[in-house]
């Protein structure tokens, strides 16, 4: 849940990168960490196994600057994608203001993408939330792989994007689509925050 302070005029929001194992969630954060100037980001914290698989989460705080007179910060988190880490996924998802679902575009990973998306929905429902009300964007990662190995964005939209959410083709390793994804989720999160306050 976002933290809005009217006295100090500060907004802090939590964005969670969700998706199946090895889809590129940590790579998104690593790319952002590498591109953002030192004074606009904090230390990237990664709780990973010895083989660099995310065990609990990755965390990257970003200082966006001033928006409508509010100093705005985003806390970016990833969840562990592997199926058996669902309890830690739920913990990281708690209090999220927006979700980026990072799908693996490889044909052979389609079932894992669907399973992870269903898992996201069931975890949100457990928290009295829903994919339709939560700001959410989809990212189709690994689009740089040979065409015969991957599904194109339109095919992935058919399979995963039931609600016509914003979706972005990406190659997170080289940063393609990473910025566009972050921009889209940031807009959605801040718009929802502002709309909720006006009701």
């Amino acid at each position, binding site marked *: *849940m976002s*933290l*809005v*302070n*009217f*006295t*100090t005029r*500060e*907004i*802090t929001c*939590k964005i969670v990168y969700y998706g199946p194992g090895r889809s590129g969630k940590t790579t998104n954060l690593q790319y952002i960490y590498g*591109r*953002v*100037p030192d004074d*606009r*980001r*904090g*230390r990237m*914290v990664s*709780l990973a196994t010895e083989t660099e698989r995310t065990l*609990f*989460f990755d*965390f990257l*705080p*970003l200082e*966006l*600057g*001033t*928006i*409508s007179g*509010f100093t*705005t910060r985003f*806390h970016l*988190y990833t969840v562990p994608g592997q199926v058996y880490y669902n*309890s*830690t996924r739920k*913990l*990281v998802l*708690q*209090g999220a203001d927006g979700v980026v679902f990072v799908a693996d575009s490889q044909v052979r990973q389609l079932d894992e993408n669907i399973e992870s998306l269903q898992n996201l929905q069931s975890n949100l429902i457990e928290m009295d939330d829903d994919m339709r009300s939560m700001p959410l964007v989809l990212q189709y990662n690994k689009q740089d792989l040979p065409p015969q190995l991957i599904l194109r964005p339109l095919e992935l939209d058919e399979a995963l994007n039931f609600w016509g959410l914003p979706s972005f083709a990406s190659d997170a390793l080289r940063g393609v689509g990473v*910025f566009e994804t*972050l*921009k889209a989720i*940031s*807009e959605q999160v*801040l*718009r929802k*925050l*502002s*709309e909720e*306050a*006006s009701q």
Partner: protein
Amino acid sequence: MRRTRAVEAWTIEPLNRFVVESGARFTLLMTPAGQVLAQHGFTRAVDVMASAALGAAIFSSTGEIARMLGEREFRALNHQGRQYGVFLGALDTDRGKLLVLVVYGSDSSLGLVQLFFDDLAEQLVVAAPVPEVRRGPILAADFERELNESLASLFGR
């Protein structure tokens, strides 16, 4: 000199008193999602955010173990190192549930921190305001322009 900084001013007095009485080196007051309301002792904002995220994670994960054991939750946790100890405590206020992370050194002790944590919790419960309900949009209608500029400068575009 180490100082106390607060996002929410009502937290400053109780926190200052706690730091003096308990001899804590670092103290963080935060929400269970890891968002910081006040801190004492940290000199770099980045350390504050990382510590808060990790503290909230410890509390959440042990809470999950408590649930598996049929406990309600662990209200306080302690990790003892050779030079420093880390104490984590929870309290319920009108502002919602809050967590306190305390780092203490050899000039203090777990007992001292626990003793004054109870006082801190009581004072915070009394001081916590009921959250204000604000009407009207928070952000200007064209906030996207500023957001885009901020993100573009963030990515050097």
